[in-house]
């Protein structure tokens, strides 16, 4: 098994490691922020953040094309700045994977933080902790299991991402062609043997994650 097998594996890992950390940190910050505050439209914001969970990947891909495409102002600004569009780049694959992973991580963290007994946080405040210390010394360690499984779920979801990536980042060998995309292309072109290898490695990986 040479380059043809390993290249998509490495592309997948490069995309997924960055995307999972990105979505995790973002989810951590947003979850903490939303936990502390009460404001009008909070429910709307939360619903909006969860949207990628129920939307088809092609809808997300479409949305990403609209927002970051060459005709959008973000897209054209980026193209002016870096001399190339976002679409069909490594960055696009990372963005797509992050977006689909985010709501899973976010939901896990919110549930985890909510399950922490408020009295334990009140006690810390009472003993002399500011909000930040309460989060670091009490909330985070007590929600540890949710935090870990939130990250794992995000990782798995980013690794499995197919539809949105295909539309927004394409499947350029060596750049954006991840394992799921490779499986699709291999099957379409009748190269079942290669597909088998990728499928087996992903299944083993998934079992380990669960």
């Amino acid at each position: 098994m040479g380059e043809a097998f390993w290249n998509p594996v490495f592309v997948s890992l490069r995309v997924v490691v960055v995307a999972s950390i990105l979505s995790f940190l973002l989810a951590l910050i947003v979850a903490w922020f939303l936990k502390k505050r009460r404001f009008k439209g909070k429910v709307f914001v939360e619903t909006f953040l969860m949207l990628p969970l129920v939307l088809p990947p092609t809808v997300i891909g479409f949305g990403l094309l609209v927002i970051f495409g060459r005709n959008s102002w973000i897209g054209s600004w980026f193209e002016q700045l870096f001399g190339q569009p976002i679409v069909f780049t490594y960055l696009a694959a990372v963005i797509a994977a992050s977006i689909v992973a985010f709501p899973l991580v976010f939901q896990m963290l919110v549930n985890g933080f909510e399950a922490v007994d408020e009295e334990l946080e009140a006690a810390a405040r009472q003993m002399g902790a500011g909000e930040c210390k309460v989060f670091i010394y009490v909330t985070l360690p007590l929600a540890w299991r949710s935090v870990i499984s939130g990250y794992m779920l995000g990782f798995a979801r980013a690794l499995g991402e197919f539809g949105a990536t295909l539309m927004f980042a394409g499947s350029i060998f060596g750049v954006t062609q991840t394992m799921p995309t490779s499986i699709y292309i291999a099957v379409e072109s009748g190269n079942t043997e290669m597909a088998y290898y990728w499928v087996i490695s992903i299944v083993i990986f998934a079992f380990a994650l669960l």
Partner: protein
Amino acid sequence: MAELKFDHIYKRFAENVAAVTDFNLDISDEEFIVFVGPSGCGKSTTLRMIAGLEEITEGSLYIDGDYVNDTPPKNRDIAMVFQNYALYPHMDVFDNIAFGLKLRKFKKEDIKARVKNASHILGLDDYLQRKPKALSGGQRQRVALGRAIVRNPKAFLMDEPLSNLDAKLRVQMRSEIIKLHHRLKTTTIYVTHDQTEAMTMASRIVVMKDGYIQQIGKPRQVYLYPENTFVGGFIGSPSMNFLEGTIRNQHFWFNEHVPLKIPEKRFHDLRQYDGKTITLGIRPEDLHEEQAFLDKMQKSKVNVMIDIAEITGSEAVLYTNIGNQEIRAVVNPWRNISQGDQLELGFDMRKAHFFNPDTGVRIKLAN
């Protein structure tokens, strides 16, 4: 060590949902104050306002003369013991006790010395390396206390700290907390719904109901001179007996046939109620079935049939009915009184109280 002053404090959770109304109280240094009342009376809310965990809607709170309404909890230097102990499951006993000191950046040796001292006082020396999960209920309670005393704060706040312990342990921890207070003399505010804890622990009791203070006073004073029927019924176990009736001819009539004679001196202040309805309140231990009492007090006794005779060991409680009111009497045990027995109950009218039947307020009598 601290003095606290509550100046017209109100707490409303939403428009028109008042949890605490016009709370006024001065607490002196070294006092052991108990807030007592049924659930929903506002006692815990008041405690959390002192800790800074609830905002004060209206009025002013002073600690040692300083206005603290806007002081965040971490700067109030007050230690609170929570009802469910609020121990951190991911820290061992040492770290739980030391947590408040670490947050305040005490030196390592200082922390060690203080935790050691607290654990010694509370008998926790052998458990410092354990996680809270591996402790019994009583030991957890002790860790929660340790966490409070180690900081040597201005005041202790305790929110029903014994309510999760079983009956035996509750009695034991009660006396340990009293001893701790004798030793440290730190101003303490203790919240409970258990009138026994209030009576046995407090230097002063604050009885609350529906967010209003009903009475403030020493245990003995509250027990002997309840301000109203609520306090009379709430403090003391079994509860004070209440009977509706009429004052006529220096007697209390709860029906047409059996008048109870009111002592001359006491009747003086009741003259204005002559012919009017009134509520009589009398404690179960002021009803007597001993022959000696009945012989002495011929004019204040009633024939009753016993519904239940509960023998708790050192005393017996008789339940009976007088004029559709359940009446409880505490008598000597082992007299072998049992269900269905007929007997005479004497009312010690020197100790009876009279309440305005509309407002429930006690009518003050010369004794």
